[in-house]
């Protein structure tokens, strides 16, 4: 009974208040983008959890590989000079 017409999967991103980022909220199946938006509104914002919704076909997302996490993020690891605490400043110096 494998169905060739199963609705594709969409990822739902919601902006909860003006001024905030869209954040991943979950996923759902829908025939097209319009239906995905309407379903996302009906399941993910029933209690005013959002002021804006993005839907993205799940298949369009490229993700980093968890097996490569260490080497992939390695370049940032030894660059402590990117943080303000790396720098020595005199104790009395104000507003810095």
């Amino acid at each position: 009974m494998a169905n060739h017409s199963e609705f594709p999967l969409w990822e739902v991103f919601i902006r909860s208040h003006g001024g905030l980022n869209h954040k991943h909220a979950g996923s759902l199946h829908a025939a097209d983008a319009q239906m995905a938006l309407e379903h996302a509104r009906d399941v993910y914002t029933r209690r005013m959890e959002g002021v804006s919704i993005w839907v993205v076909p799940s298949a369009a997302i490229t993700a980093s590989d968890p097996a490569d996490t260490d080497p992939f993020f390695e370049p940032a690891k030894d660059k402590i000079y990117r943080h303000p605490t790396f720098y020595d400043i005199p104790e009395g110096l104000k507003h810095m």
Partner: protein
Amino acid sequence: MSTQVSLEERFQARIDAEQKIEPKDWMPEAYRKTLIRQISQHAHSEVVGMLPEGNWITRAPSLRRKVALLAKVQDEAGHGLYLYSAAETLGISREELYNELLSGKAKYSSIFNYPTLTWADMGAVGWLVDGAAIMNQVALCKCSYGPYARAMVRVCKEESFHQRQGFEILLTLSKGTPEQRAMCQDAINRWWWPSMMMFGPNDSDSPHSAQSMRWKIKRYSNDTLRQKFVDMAAEQIRVLNMTLPDPDLRWNEERGHYDFGPIDWNEFNEVLKGNGPCNRERLAARRKAWEEGAWVREAAMAHAAKRQQQSVQSH
């Protein structure tokens, strides 16, 4: 072989360190299978669970009660969706999951195979059935599998009104006429033991529990959660001025918990096997909804395909 062992050791070490497991992470096949079974059963329970309450939406005694019940049933549909989505991250399709429900192969919570006979049942279901479900679900918010844990956080936020609206229904009836009080007590009597069974077999008869605890899919044992539920209900029933149908129920000073009587596991097993009062009716209702919705799904796909074609042509 040795790499397999080290993979499993590393996996367990991550769990022990309270790290969340995410969909693309390596995981033992048995962990994946256990989660698919548990999350899909949970999803099916939300979906089938809409039926006993849906039964009363058109007969709610006031508009206030009607909008509340409708909102609750809508929430349960949403819970089904969050859970199916979590199960799908483990590599099984929605269609496979749904077919397992419709074919009768998959299980769902036995509680939903009991009938809702009177309006008071809406109160008892909200108070006891959602109450028991919340107890299970709060524990699952800390489950080791990320998508399941996150779905549970959403679900728990939404559940709190379910139990309150149920309690309010019972409280109103408990202050009503003698007939309304009797109806209230009758509903509590019928829903109490099936709710107690929602926590599953006693720990001594729950063979998979130990592994699930090691994997932190489960955080508390069946009996621990059941005791918490009894302690909660035994106090709240006094506010209703009603009784729980258990002659053995009494406070045990030494244990700091309420003692309670034995559970009829024969009944539980019969319902699980498909011989409960509503098993056939519930599945028939889900199949009917699926079959009668087929043309809508097909039309939506055809419409989407046509619109896409039009947008390709117009560019």
